[in-house]
């Protein structure tokens, strides 16, 4: 079942690449994928060894709570964005290729979500990185190619850092995912330092995908050059793959009790806090719209890493929740930005005066998402951040547990600064700036998808109850 | 040291001679001179040998007809060696002079370096 779920988009993509089908084919595939995912959601937990390379190394697929959440998120957003993309790319010279790799990437991601052990995780992680490269360099401009290579290198570097952890685990424990970690107490007590080092490497390595300091610099380069739908999913979803991997490795492999209170945890949290602050300040200073969003991703993702780093159930819940919210929101934002660029070819923030007059829907959705990201109740962002902060207060890390929330709040303020500023510019224009913005509202499809995302952003906040309780059950298994 | 030199002046002289011959053999360009130097060198060594064989106040083994007791004679062996040596050096000298002659006929010079340069030219 899971295998079909993975293979479907991959085969679809390859088919598309060679048969050059019309794009309704894409939607068909995606719908099917959502359907399958839906079915998968309600099937019981399973674990299935697909392939035995050696007795140690094998490919395993499993479904559990975490994978369900991520899978649902991924597949849903993919569908939404694809709808938007069809109109966005209608004048593009080579939409087929874009969609092909779009599907392939989805395959990779699905595999990642369903991975049952470290080996599989690594496999699909690499696959997804490689397959998403074409999305980045789709426009084929010089800087696009450069950015793509940078993206590639950072991903590979991250992955190979993670490999260190992989092999240390392979030698000292097992690489199967099991809630609460796989390492026996004896091993931990014996090889503590090695294991901790491995854990740190792995976290930073996978964190690279999530743009953790000091491995963040690819993100603002790669995301903006891609076409808007691509940057949306890159920044909204694919980055979450890194988060997912971190969760898997930390909570399902090394285990909480190894890391809790160790120097690794401090390093981790401090790194994430640094990137939170840095990301939002840079975003604040950034003038190019998409770049600004990218920087904001850096900071937001580090919120999540921070939440995970607290190693508390609440923090965990908040983190995963923020994963979902942020992916919805950030997609919404990018789609909005994309819409603006698509219609007016304006990329700089200060060119956007009065854009709200000509593109009301877009900018409204943009604003809603912005508010959600800042964390205004009752949006999703609020709930997740609340949990994050609560988590850090629970964590009992002394100074950090106080410093963390402060930084989060500061960056929230900054967020408000760099996002709401745009909305304000867009709607409230000075009298002399009248009609500065030309062009008109985007087509129906694009509008709908934006609206849908904005709607989701709010809904997630209001009806977050069931999700939270579900997450708490998961977290219950981990601590 | 000083009277040392004086007492065995034969050796001193022979060493000096040897030096002269050696330098002459090595340094002078002219082939004839080289071989003269060689001869001087040999002579020096013969002098040395004979000096070694000489025992003060005795006579060489000349007239074998009137046999007296061997106490009166000098050590005959070095003399024999010297004779042999002289013969050898004479023959060597003859040979080398013949060579020089031949060389002069071909190259019309006695300077070895010139000869070699010419020989090289001949090769090309």
């Amino acid at each position, binding site marked *: 079942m899971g295998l079909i779920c993975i293979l479907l988009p991959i085969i679809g993509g390859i088919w598309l690449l060679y048969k050059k089908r019309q794009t309704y084919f894409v939607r068909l595939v995606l719908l099917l994928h959502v359907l399958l995912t839906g079915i998968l959601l309600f099937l019981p937990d399973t674990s299935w060894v697909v*392939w*035995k*390379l*050696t007795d140690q*190394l094998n*490919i395993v697929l499993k479904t559990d709570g975490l994978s369900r959440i991520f899978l649902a998120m991924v597949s849903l957003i993919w569908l939404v964005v694809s709808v938007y993309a069809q109109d966005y790319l209608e004048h593009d010279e080579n939409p087929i290729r874009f969609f092909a790799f779009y599907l392939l990437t989805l395959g990779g991601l699905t595999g990642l979500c369903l991975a049952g052990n470290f*080996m599989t995780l*690594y*496999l699909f992680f*690499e*696959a997804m990185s*490689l397959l998403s*490269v*074409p999305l980045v*360099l789709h*426009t*084929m*401009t*010089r800087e696009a*190619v450069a950015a*793509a*290579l940078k993206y*590639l*290198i950072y991903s*590979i*570097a991250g992955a*190979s*850092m993670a*490999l*260190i952890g992989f*092999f*240390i685990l*392979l*030698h*000292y424990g097992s690489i199967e995912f099991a809630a609460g970690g796989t390492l026996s107490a004896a091993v931990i007590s014996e090889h503590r330092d*090695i294991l901790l080092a491995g854990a740190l490497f792995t976290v930073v390595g996978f964190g690279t995908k999530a743009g953790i300091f000091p491995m963040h610099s690819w993100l603002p380069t790669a995301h903006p050059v891609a076409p808007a739908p691509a940057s949306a999913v890159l920044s909204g979803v694919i980055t979450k793959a890194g988060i997912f991997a971190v969760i898997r490795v930390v909570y399902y492999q090394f285990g909480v009790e190894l890391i809790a209170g160790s120097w690794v945890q401090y390093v981790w949290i401090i790194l994430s806090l640094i990137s939170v602050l840095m990301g939002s300040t840079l975003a604040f200073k950034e003038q190019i719209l998409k770049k600004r969003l990218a920087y904001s991703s850096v900071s937001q993702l580090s919120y999540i890493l921070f939440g995970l780093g607290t190693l508390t159930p609440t923090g965990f819940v908040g983190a995963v929740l923020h994963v979902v919210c942020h992916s919805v929101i950030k997609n919404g934002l990018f789609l909005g930005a994309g819409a603006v660029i698509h219609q007016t070819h304006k990329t700089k923030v200060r060119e956007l005066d009065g854009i709200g007059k000509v593109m009301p829907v877009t900018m409204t959705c943009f604003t809603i998402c912005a508010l959600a990201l800042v964390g205004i109740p009752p949006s999703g962002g609020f709930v997740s951040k609340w949990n994050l902060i609560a988590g850090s207060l629970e964590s009992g890390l002394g100074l950090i547990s106080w410093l963390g929330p402060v930084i989060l709040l500061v960056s929230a303020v900054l967020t408000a600064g760099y996002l709401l500023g745009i909305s304000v510019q867009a709607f409230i224009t000075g009298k002399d700036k009248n009609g500065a913005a030309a062009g008109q509202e985007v087509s129906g499809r694009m509008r709908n998808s934006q609206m849908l995302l904005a709607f989701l952003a709010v809904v997630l906040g209001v009806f977050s109850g069931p999700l939270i309780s579900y997450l708490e059950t998961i977290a219950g298994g981990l601590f | 040291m000083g009277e040392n030199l004086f007492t065995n002046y034969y050796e001193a002289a022979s060493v000096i001679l040897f030096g002269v011959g050696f330098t002459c053999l090595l340094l002078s360009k002219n082939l004839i001179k080289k071989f003269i130097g060689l001869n001087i060198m040999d002579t020096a060594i013969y002098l040395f040998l004979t000096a070694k064989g000489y025992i003060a106040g005795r006579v060489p083994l000349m007239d074998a007809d009137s046999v007296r007791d061997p106490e009166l004679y000098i050590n005959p062996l070095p003399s024999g060696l010297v004779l042999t040596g002289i013969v050898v050096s004479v023959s060597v000298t003859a040979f080398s002079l013949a060579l020089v002659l031949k060389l002069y006929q071909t190259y019309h010079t006695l300077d070895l370096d010139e000869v070699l340069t010419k020989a090289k030219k001949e090769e090309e």
Partner: protein
Amino acid sequence: MGNNAWFLMIPILVPLIGGILVSACHMEQRRLRQGFVMATVILNSVFVWAAIFWLQGKEFRLVELSQSMSLTLSLDGLGCVFAGMVAVLWPIASVYAFEYMKHEGGEVRFFKYYTMTYGVTLGVAFSHNLVTMYLFYEMLTLITLPLVMHSKTDAAKAAGRKYLVFSIGGASLAFIGMVFLYHVVGDATFTAGGMMAVQGLAAAKGQNLLTIFVITFIGFGVKAALFPFHGWLPTAGVAPTTVTALLHAVAVVKAGAFAVIRITYYLFGADVLRRTWAQNVVLLLAAFTIVLGSAKALKEQHVKRRLAYSTISNLSYILLGAALMTPLGLQAALTHMIAHAFIKITLFYCAGSIIYKAHYEYVPQMVGLAGRMPVVMGCFTIGSLALMGIPLLPAFISKAGLLTGIVELGTPAAYIGMGALLISAVLTAYYLFSIVIRAYFPGKGFDITSNQDARDPNWLMKGPLILLCIICLLLGLFPGRLLEFFADIAAGLF
């Protein structure tokens, strides 16, 4: 003493004679020559496999050199690995060579030496003791020299000279080690787990022993392009691609690695060397070479030289594995030996086909080539992925082995090696994918009409390529049996 052990001579002699015949009968007609060479090579591969199946453990003494030294052939597990690998690759490579050499000229000469090399390589694999291996090792150098200088250009001659100096130099370093073993230790027969005598000696004059080991390791490492003696390999890239592919990615260089494994595990013995400064020295050398090779490959714009540098770094993977001196390490080394052989020959053949068809030799020229030569670039991509160590492809298995072995050994030098491996993994991805990506995504304003003439080559070249790719994939998917076999070998040594 097997009654039919003399059969071990056959696989060595057949190609030598065949090669001589090629030039003796002066086969100018291409069909005849190709038929003949192909027949010889395939026949010989059959012989090799026959030997592998029936003659393991047999030994055959050719001649006594002196009281202690004798030329003896025998076949053990390790030999089987090497011989088997060569026996599989040679026929495939020959098919490719037939087509490729058309535009190089001097085919008679080429195939003469090409065939003879086969025999000599097998000789290295079949050696029973150090002096025998030394003999074939030297012969290997001398017989591949004409292949390096094939084009007879000044560059080729210079390369040949460099190759000669490095190889002979390395061999004579190894010679010192050999003399030490025969003279001081008294024997140098390959015995699993190292010779007792050495272990006896290890107690007595350890330092001297270790020094000699390092010298010997470096000496044989020269053929495996170990820093600081790696320089010849890129220079030798002037040779025809078939040579570079088969010899300088597989036969010759692997012979070096093979020799290193021999001396480490079969003469000095891992137990004597493990956790000594000697091990650290060789580990660090290998690690440094790994990084250096990949870095240089990144800087290099000439495709073949880039691949050559990548060979340098990958060979040091093998040496690193060998230097770990743990069962896992050896197992990984052997795995990587096989894996890299197939992968690298694939890559080289892709490069060769590009040079052959499109006459492009530099990376920037290969922009948008994928449209023109889908098969070739496809194989190239698979090769690149494999070399990067993506799971389900062969190199991943060996890397897994290496890194686990490193963790197992756990000395600082070993962890440095781990760092080197990971760095070079990144670099590998970079220097290979910068080619692949450019080939598939030429970039804006790339006129599709350029490289019109570039086409996929005919089946004589395509066939081997695809076959090799398939083998790569199979190796990656079904490593089980192979690994077990290696594990058995390794188990015998500890």
